């Protein structure tokens, strides 16, 4: 038996207001823009896809299973601008076929600068999942699947059974991502590795006309899945793939609608959630990841967020405030919202020239504009912190 493990990442950053060196007493976050984006994506993606998944779960008598990771920043915005989205996730949770994973509440890079802060954000997120869905997460996924031996050890200590990351050749060599592995130095926690080829077939290539496999249909994809060897095939993609990255007219919803029916034609395939998988299968080896990897870009490293000097300076200045903001709950929340990885992603100059992937909902004209806007806000926050 090979289990299909679908996990969808759901996140929307809180985009910043335009803030110049002259700005005073102005809110940091662009309420109107964030509301507009969220409502649009709710209409195009979250609501219709949740409805479809709910129908599929009911139709296949519990055989169809999926997992989500919802960031705290996303949930906060939903509560404010589109509470019906939260309700639809709660409906899904009630079926018992949907697992919610744990991550940092703020979709942050906290692990890179403060273990203490990292743990606090995990705890906040854990509390949120418990409150919203009455689940105690057993699987952890770090922001952008950032992962290393040390991160895995840390997460193991917190009691998790599984951790998610990228199944890239740089860590696997000749081995397949379709098996469970022990992180190097761990005994209790298992690594679930993304099958990036099969994931990107849906996430990136689904509507690509240059692709020789275009158009991708549920029956074709199911044949590929049925031919895979291994314990589990981990399809981890951004939830916005459905209806937003891939628009409805690409046929993405029909693809999803017929996927359970098509895969059910192959008796060697079933659906499992990540925590079922780590319970059911035994690891076949060890993955050794001494340096932090991620699932982003071709390099699968941290260069999308922390490569150029602007990103490094902004990050460093932000982290310096840690001790000072912790005394003030209101400022602490704002400071944490500034940790969301997207703010650093917007400052990336790496792909600026050919741009497209990084362009998605990027509110800035250039990485330089992203940098000065962030720095102006950080300066203002610093001033507030110091005056308290």
């Amino acid at each position, binding site marked *: 038996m090979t289990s299909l493990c679908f996990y969808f990442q759901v996140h929307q950053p809180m985009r910043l207001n335009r803030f*110049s*060196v*002259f700005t005073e007493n102005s809110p940091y976050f662009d309420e109107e823009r964030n509301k507009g984006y969220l409502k649009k994506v709710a209409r195009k993606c979250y609501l219709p896809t949740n409805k479809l998944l709910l129908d599929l779960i009911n139709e296949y008598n519990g055989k169809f299973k999926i997992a989500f990771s919802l960031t705290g920043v996303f949930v906060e915005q939903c509560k404010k601008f589109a509470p019906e989205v939260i309700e639809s996730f709660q409906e899904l949770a009630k079926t018992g076929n949907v697992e919610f994973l744990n991550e940092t509440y703020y979709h942050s890079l906290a692990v890179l600068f403060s273990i203490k802060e990292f743990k606090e954000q995990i705890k906040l997120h854990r509390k949120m999942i418990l409150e919203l869905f009455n689940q105690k997460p057993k699987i952890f996924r770090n922001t952008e699947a950032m992962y290393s031996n040390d991160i895995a050890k840390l997460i193991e200590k917190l009691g998790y059974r599984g951790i998610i990351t990228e199944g890239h050749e740089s860590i696997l060599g000749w081995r397949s991502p379709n098996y469970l592995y022990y992180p190097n130095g761990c005994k209790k926690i298992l690594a679930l590795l993304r099958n990036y080829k099969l994931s990107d077939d849906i996430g990136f290539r689904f509507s690509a006309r240059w692709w020789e496999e275009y158009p991708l249909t549920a029956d074709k994809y199911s044949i590929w899945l049925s031919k895979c060897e291994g314990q589990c095939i981990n399809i981890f993609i951004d939830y916005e793939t459905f209806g937003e990255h891939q628009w409805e007219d690409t046929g993405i919803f029909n693809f999803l609608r017929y996927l359970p029916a098509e895969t059910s034609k192959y008796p060697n395939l079933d659906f499992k959630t990540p925590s079922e998988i780590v319970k059911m299968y035994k690891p076949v080896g060890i993955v050794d990841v001494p340096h932090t990897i991620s699932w982003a870009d071709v390099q699968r490293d941290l260069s999308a967020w922390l490569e*150029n*000097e*602007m990103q490094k*300076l902004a990050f460093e200045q932000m982290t310096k405030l840690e001790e000072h903001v912790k005394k003030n709950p209101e400022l602490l929340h704002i400071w944490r919202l500034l940790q969301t990885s997207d703010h650093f992603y917007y400052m990336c*100059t790496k792909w*600026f*020239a050919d741009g497209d992937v990084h362009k998605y909902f990027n509110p800035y*004209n*250039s*990485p*330089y*504009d992203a*940098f*000065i806007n962030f*720095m*102006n806000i950080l300066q203002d926050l610093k001033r507030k912190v110091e005056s308290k």
Partner: protein
Amino acid sequence: MKILMLGWEFPPAKTGGLGTHCYELVKNLSKKGVKVILLIPKRTGNIKHNIPNVEIIEVGSVALNPYNTTRPDDKFEKGYGWNFFEEVRAFNKRCVEIAKTKKFDVVHCHDWMTIDAGIEIKKITGKPLVFTVHSTEYDRTANIYPMNFIVDVEKKGIQKADLIITVSKGMKKQLIEMYNAEEEKIIVIYNGIDPSKYFGLIKKGSKGIILFLGRLTNQKGPYFFLHTAKKVLEKRKDVMFIVAGQGEQLPELIRIAIGLGIMDNVVFTGFLPEEELLQAYAMADVYVMPSVAEPFGITALEAIASGTPVIVSKNAGVAEKILHCFKVDFWDTHEMANKIICLLKYPILGECMRKNSYREIRNFGWDRVAEQTISVYRRTI
């Protein structure tokens, strides 16, 4: 291939992008084996050059330029000398006479001052006409009292030319919208830069110098530069603003600077000779080009070639091509000041920008311009 080219300026006597363009184009065409006869108005009468395949003829006694600043103070003719149109007419007439005695495959005109002759030469010889539009009357006047007579000359040229070259997509759009030009006839060829002439990415400490460089006319937006300076100086005093260039608005700009109370931090340099110009570019911490209208804006490339981060007007042609710079609305002095202050405050910002933009211009040379121009000639023959 032999080209009869009608230009208006040629170094050292030049006041703008047109002169640089003609010089570099002719030089690089010659490298690619294209023969050129270049006709330009006589100014100094002693243009020296050692470009093979190129014959430069200084025509007649014209000693004026289209942006003449030392004209009689006649409001109606705004910016042009009394005899200017007479001189243009005489130049065009002489060019036609010279053309009759020469052999060539294509006649290539630059801007309205030369196009009348081009049209006539095409009529007489039957040779194809290529017309490069570097700027229109609307651009040069920032759309404040454009002269209908000149617009009509431009319109006629655009209609009669076999192919038209513009220096940006923005200019192409303008020709289609305001001059009824046929879209298929227009080819965009961005201006180029020869980085070897400039200081490049040499390391330099911050001196707090902000540079404006251009003709002091409405078109180039020096007024907005001064108001930006005022805003920057409200936040910090250790900044100098250099206004380099000459033009009709100099006295008024000085009055404005005095009125704003910023004269201690503003320097008007007047015309800068080549050597000082290169120094100014390299010395500046930021180059600002707040042009109201800017078909291309070679000076932005020159600043980048000098290792200086640039802030350019959004509507400048150069903004279509260069990614690694700040782009602003020319009237948004608040935003320009914000960006200048941040560039001064975070040196690594300027570092990132100047390194990345320098990389962008490395493959943006004049040989590309020549190559693209040759393919335009080929299409007409």
